[in-house]
């Protein structure tokens, strides 16, 4: 891959001059002290132990007996049945009294350990959609029921929990796409991550209110990350692998659409959003589904389906996805407490809709906070025992208003020692940021809605800068791993230019030139970065090399012309821009640039004449207005000179 920067880009950048390097100190200083959890932890101590419960049984009057019908069936129906039904995601069904009785000890142990129902954030965070933790009292009830010998209740057989429907939970879909060929999962070994790319057959544009994921083989599919790719990048990766899907990384072009979370963990189905909050699905878009599978002990076939639900009108509101997190993660082998912090001060009022923490195996504790302008802090979420397997999206029942000036922050703590059973490396080794599950990540995604379009643009523009500043750290690590990958280098260099760090951009473009000295685009890109860095002589040499390889390279002449202008060599500039006009006779931009060069050379007759020629091509706005202003200014200068 070797991307050439556009001429228009350079024209703007040169005009804007050198930007200052962004400073990250303010952001990093956000979290000062580690929060203390004493109060919460102390609260847990009051939970009765099973011994105490068992002792209590003797004195309890008979009418207080815990029964399946009255006490247990409603809990199982409400908190468990969505997965624990026949053919559900859970390993066994819990719909009947017999089911419950035959897994009673397992239920008691799993609920007491708070392993089930899977809900990783603290029970008092939220409230979130689909929140199903059991209260301490409910856990105690289950314990007592097991200790009592699992009494059924008045009816014979005891009345069961609710039945379960195997239909789509969100109703009749408008469109269902299914992986064409099933993926063959081996019987044995470590977890498998497979990325499937499925074309979405829609004609024209649709407005998506929601999707529902069906794993196809719920016993082995543990969770799914879903993205959409409007490019062909994911499809190309899939096609390069002979089996269904591919193994590797999700392409950068596969994104959350218009700031909407897509994904699936067992028992979690995102409710449909109103039509005015839908996302746009255009034809030619691919669905990218990364499926996390656990081998079951026998060969399995996996064939997921995704249902789409469409709205009847275009969205009027678009959420923004804010990503807190670091790509500088570098945890020494054996480190038990490695902390990652990040924060961001909101430049506009927003409503926090949903959150998703993301990390791999070594994270122990994840925390998110909001510190309001008046100084008080609200905990957004706390996960004390991170489990990579349960990466829920936490959607607020009622969105949380975060006024302008609120600082949102995250603090994640990792354990890279052998004491962490989930550590995939034995013995532990140094781990750095990366998207493979053997690497580490640490992100907290926040989905927010702004009050209006203008705030959306403000937030989007501001936040992009922060994201890009973090992304280049990740690119540096990836480039260290794959120094010969010129595509990585070019992408990183473009991000550096966006950040106003042209010397870093030039460093990577230089590497591309070294790897591909015959590429005109590579020399042109390097010349561009050097131009922005005001290393004009070096830039000029790169443009000359680009033109020696490709004499028709209009953009190289264009940037050369700009460099001559900065150097004050106006005649040379006129010659360079004339070449652009010769090569691109229909380009108003080229004529506008040539006009500017004539003006710099104080030839206002030709400047006015050339600007007029540009305007005759009827260019679009804002170029047309710029050209008019240019022409009027040259006319004034012409009159003044006479």
């Amino acid at each position, binding site marked *: 891959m070797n991307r050439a920067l556009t001429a228009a880009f350079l024209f703007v950048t040169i005009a804007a001059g050198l930007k200052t390097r962004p400073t990250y100190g303010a952001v990093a200083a956000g979290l000062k002290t580690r929060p203390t959890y004493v109060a919460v932890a102390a609260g847990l101590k009051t939970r009765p132990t099973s011994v105490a419960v068992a002792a209590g049984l003797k004195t309890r009057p008979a009418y207080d007996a815990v029964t399946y019908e009255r006490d247990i069936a409603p809990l199982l129906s409400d908190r468990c049945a969505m997965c624990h039904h026949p053919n559900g995601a859970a*390993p*066994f069904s819990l719909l009947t009294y017999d089911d419950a*009785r*035959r*897994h*009673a*000890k*397992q239920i008691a*142990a*799993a609920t007491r*350990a708070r*392993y089930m129902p899977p809900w990783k954030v603290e029970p008092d965070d939220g409230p979130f959609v689909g929140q199903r933790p059991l209260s301490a009292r409910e856990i105690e009830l289950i314990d007592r029921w097991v200790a009592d010998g*699992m009494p059924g209740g008045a009816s014979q057989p005891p009345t069961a929990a609710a039945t379960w429907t195997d239909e789509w939970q969100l109703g009749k879909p408008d469109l269902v796409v299914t992986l064409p060929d099933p993926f063959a999962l081996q*019987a*044995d070994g*470590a*977890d498998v991550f497979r990325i499937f790319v499925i074309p979405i057959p829609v004609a024209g544009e649709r407005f998506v209110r929601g999707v529902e994921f069906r794993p196809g083989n719920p*016993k082995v599919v543990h969770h799914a990350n879903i993205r959409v790719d409007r490019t062909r990048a994911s499809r190309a990766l899939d096609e390069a692998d002979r089996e269904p899907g591919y193994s590797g990384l999700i392409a950068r072009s596969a994104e959350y659409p218009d700031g909407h979370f897509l994904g699936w963990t067992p028992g979690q189905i995102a409710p449909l959003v109103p039509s005015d909050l839908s996302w746009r699905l255009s034809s030619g878009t691919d669905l990218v589904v990364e499926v996390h599978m*656990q*081998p*079951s*002990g*026998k060969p399995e076939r996996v064939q997921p389906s995704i249902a789409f639900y469409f709205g009847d009108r275009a969205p009027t509101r678009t959420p923004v996805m804010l990503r807190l997190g670091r790509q500088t993660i570098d945890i020494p082998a054996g480190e038990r407490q490695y902390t990652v912090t990040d924060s961001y001060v909101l430049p506009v009022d927003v409503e926090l809709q949903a959150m998703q923490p993301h990390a791999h*195996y070594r994270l122990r504790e994840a925390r998110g906070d909001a510190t309001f302008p008046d100084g008080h802090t609200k905990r957004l979420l706390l996960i004390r025992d991170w*489990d990579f*397997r349960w990466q829920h999206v936490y959607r607020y029942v009622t969105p949380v208003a975060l006024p302008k000036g609120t600082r949102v922050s995250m603090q994640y703590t990792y354990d890279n020692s052998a004491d962490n*059973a*989930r*550590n*995939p490396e*034995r013995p532990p080794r140094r781990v750095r940021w990366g998207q493979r599950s053997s690497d580490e990540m640490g992100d907290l995604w926040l989905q927010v809605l702004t009050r209006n379009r203008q705030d959306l643009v403000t937030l989007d523009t501001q936040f992009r800068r922060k994201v890009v500043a973090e992304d280049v750290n990740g690119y540096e690590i990836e480039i260290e791993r794959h120094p010969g990958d010129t595509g990585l280098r070019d992408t990183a260099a473009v991000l550096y230019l966006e950040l106003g760090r042209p010397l870093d951009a030039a460093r990577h473009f230089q590497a591309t030139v070294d790897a591909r000295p015959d590429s005109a685009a590579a020399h042109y890109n390097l010349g561009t970065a050097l131009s922005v860095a005001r290393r004009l002589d070096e830039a000029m040499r790169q443009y000359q090399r680009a033109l020696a390889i490709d004499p028709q390279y209009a953009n190289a002449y264009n940037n050369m012309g700009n460099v001559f202008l900065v150097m004050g060599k106006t005649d040379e500039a006129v010659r360079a821009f004339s070449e652009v006009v010769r090569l691109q006779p229909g380009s108003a931009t080229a004529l506008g640039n040539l006009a500017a060069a004539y003006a710099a050379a104080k030839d206002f007759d030709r400047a006015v004449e050339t600007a007029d020629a540009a305007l005759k091509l009827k260019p679009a706005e804002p170029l047309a207005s710029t050209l008019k202003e240019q022409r009027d200014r040259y006319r004034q200068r012409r009159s003044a000179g006479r």
Partner: protein
Amino acid sequence: MRDEVPHPSSLFPPPSSLFPDTIAPVLTTLAVLIQTLTGAAVDALQPPTGAAAIVYVFTSTDCPISNRYAPEIRRLSERFAKQGVVFRLIYPGRETAAAIRDHVRAFSYEESAEAFRDPDLALVRFTGATITPEAVVIANGRVAYRGRIDDRYADIGVDRSTATTHDLADALTAIASGRPAPHPVTQAVGCYIADLAR
């Protein structure tokens, strides 16, 4: 539930001087009856002809953790066959012979381990097994090892990408060469056998 087979620990308290962690040696005359899939009674402690030791792997058709061990059980069975070790699957509780046959076929156990039922939990009580999957090695009429296959599962919901200790294999290696298992009792992680009895 039948009660004619007493729990051995009540008859023979563990001799702590001999193997501190070992379950009590028992008289080989004591029969612990389990069933073949056709319903024939078999003395669980009596090794088949030519076998030096029997490994019972307690399992069930719907425990995901014991199912995930199927390939490892097959590998261990093959590896220790030369030393005269016979692997057997033991299904405690009410699982039917038909369901067990399907399970054996689905997880390709046919060549690796014969399946038996323990409907009255005779072997469960004799060995003290509580979990599926839990392995029990019977050698010379006594329990020489009881516990996990390896440490892949640290707890329910906490598993390693690969095991770091191979407790059953280490026990079998020692037992096959006439030494006691280095850790005769370990804690298995999985599903509760108590539930299977219901």
